[in-house]
């Protein structure tokens, strides 16, 4: 029987035992969620050359883990429109905390930590008011929610922290949703996506919209370069016969640059970009499309087209030793820089949408 004394002693012990760091769990470079052949789900730690350093069970189909900057701790979200997320100890596999969305909110499946790892920011839906929110939780105190602020848009998706700062950037997809409607897009004609920047305290710093003709180009996923260049990947909900750009580049205070593949190659993406990444040296930028079975690559500075890697069910994308590392729904981890697969490692299970990069200050 737990006594008050025993409970307090336990708390003290917990405070004294150092929390495991990423080095304690094999120094993974990435986290990915995977569906196993038996139908259960796992959180996998991967090195940038495709080796697996840990594999832990997930309670449900997990999505887009956010990784703590120093502690071996990851947040896995339930599938949209989920109302909970779990914080997993990547050494023991234990669920260290459970995050429940506040009344009238649900998660969108992405989150980001503050630079010091003390705060967790998550994109959420205030579905009564049809507005995006950022939920703020205290990662040092059981992830209790301490604040929230509006994202200045509808349907926020990925949130990221600008390298070397505590400035946050949010892709507001522009698509309304409601838990009563399940994972269904509502009111496409009213779409007005944007890219919004905030201070750590939630003050709006800048909101960037696309031209009116691209109102149906949903801004969803983000990648950041060390110098503050933001790449955003989009999903097109407009005229299916006229493919819109799926990749944009933005630097604060400047105009957006939109990149498209040459002529017919743009249509091959099926209007869908699932992930975006800069190459390790920052010189290239890529987006992936599982329905298009490919990743497309451009020069991140000149915007010049480089080529496309054809790869079945590719989605997870991040920086890698040869430029990029990608994961697929067929269980591959692949290295590439342009059009060719340079190496690949086969794993058990199907990798889910994203490959989350662990980097001390990214």
């Amino acid at each position: 029987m737990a006594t008050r004394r025993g409970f307090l002693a336990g708390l003290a012990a917990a405070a004294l035992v150092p929390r495991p760091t990423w080095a304690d769990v094999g120094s993974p470079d990435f986290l990915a969620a995977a569906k196993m052949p038996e139908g259960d789900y796992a959180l996998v730690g991967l090195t940038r050359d495709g080796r697996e350093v840990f594999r832990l069970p997930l309670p449900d189909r997990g999505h887009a883990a956010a990784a703590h900057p120093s502690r071996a701790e990851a947040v896995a979200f339930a599938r949209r429109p989920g109302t909970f997320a779990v914080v997993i100890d990547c050494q023991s596999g234990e669920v260290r905390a459970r995050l429940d969305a506040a009344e009238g909110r649900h998660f969108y499946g992405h989150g980001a930590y503050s630079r010091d790892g003390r705060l967790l920011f998550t994109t959420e839906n205030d579905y009564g008011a049809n507005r995006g929110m950022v939920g703020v939780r205290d990662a040092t105190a059981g992830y209790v929610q301490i604040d929230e602020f509006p994202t200045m848009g509808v349907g926020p998706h990925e949130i990221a922290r600008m390298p070397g700062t505590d400035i946050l950037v949010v892709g507001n997809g522009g698509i309304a949703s409601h838990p009563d409607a399940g994972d269904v897009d509502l009111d496409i004609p009213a779409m007005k996506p944007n890219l919004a920047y905030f201070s750590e305290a939630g003050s709006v710093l800048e909101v960037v919209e696309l031209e009116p003709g691209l109102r149906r180009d949903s801004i969803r996923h983000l990648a950041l370069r060390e110098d503050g260049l933001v790449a955003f990947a989009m999903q097109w909900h407009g005229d299916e016969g006229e493919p819109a750009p799926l990749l944009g580049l933005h630097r604060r205070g400047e105009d957006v640059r939109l990149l498209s593949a040459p002529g017919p190659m743009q249509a091959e993406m099926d209007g869908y970009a699932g992930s975006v990444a800069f190459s390790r040296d920052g010189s290239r930028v890529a987006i992936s499309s599982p329905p298009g079975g490919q990743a497309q690559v451009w020069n991140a500075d000149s915007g010049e087209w480089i080529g496309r890697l054809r790869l079945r069910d590719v989605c997870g994308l991040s920086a890698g030793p040869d430029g990029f590392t990608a994961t697929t729904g067929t269980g591959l981890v692949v290295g590439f820089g342009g059009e060719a697969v340079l190496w690949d490692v086969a794993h058990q299970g199907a990798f889910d949408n994203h490959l989350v990069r662990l980097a001390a200050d990214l």
Partner: protein
Amino acid sequence: MRLVLALLACCAGPAVAQERAEVIRDVVGNHVLPRYAALDEAAQDLDAAAQADCEPESPALREAYGEAFDAWIAASHLRFGPSEVEDRAYALAFWPDPRGDTPGALRALILEEDPVVGTAEGFAEVSIAARGFYGMEFMLYDEEFAGLGAEGYRCDLIRAQARDIALIAGAMQEEWTGGYADLMLRPGGDRYRSEADVIQEFYDALGAGLEFTADSRLARPMGEFDDPKPARAEARRSGRSLRHVRISLASLHDLAERLMPEGVVHDHLGAAFDRAETLAARLDDPVFAGVSDPTGRFRVEALKGAVDRISAVGNEELGAALGVAAGFNASDGD
């Protein structure tokens, strides 16, 4: 009942290795190889016709162009292996071209009288937007290009385009017969680890071909109801928009028949193809100009709906029957 049918369909399909091998032999031998051989032959004829007479209105040249383009459309869903080396498929067919890269690249060549058209090696380095059937269509059928720059240069450019098409078609034919067909017939290497991988390749080609016809050939000119875009119709200058839909449907139907030679799924697919092919045959709107009025638009939309229906049968029934599936990520977006 539905479930029973699905189970029957599953077991009537080429589930066992021997049946899979038979399907692969049939598709490679009677669908793929004849199409690339026909393209090669028609492309060599086009080259000969252009070298003999480069006048854009020459009946012999236009006929040879039409026949070669037909042969390409019939093969154009087979986008793997030789067609993907050095972006050959795009060098033959750079379309859709929403930014107008093709006329832009052609204008630049003509106005600068770029000497690259003088050699096949030189022309092979030209932007893929200026090469292939769609670039050649501007040179043979577009009013602006009939009078742009010097006549002699335009003639050299047409000949270079025809020679380039012939070289690409020849190279693809050589690689198909010189090894790639064997890779598919005897899987086990890196490219195709098993017969299931080869079947998957054909299944993907069928799906991509149907989607291209529905989205690019039909939805693009339809545009929005209050903003139709007839000028986006494929190859409208040469009056080939509807023709491409028909050739493509016939070719995809042939592939589907060979992938699923009998059974319930075969019958469902056959009925869906018949419906779309009948609508296309009755359409009588060669360049989809009708999308600008409600009645004409309705008919094009009905055809697109019929093509989408074939895709739906393919996704819902054929995939399961063949034992292939849509990707984990492709089928569940985020």
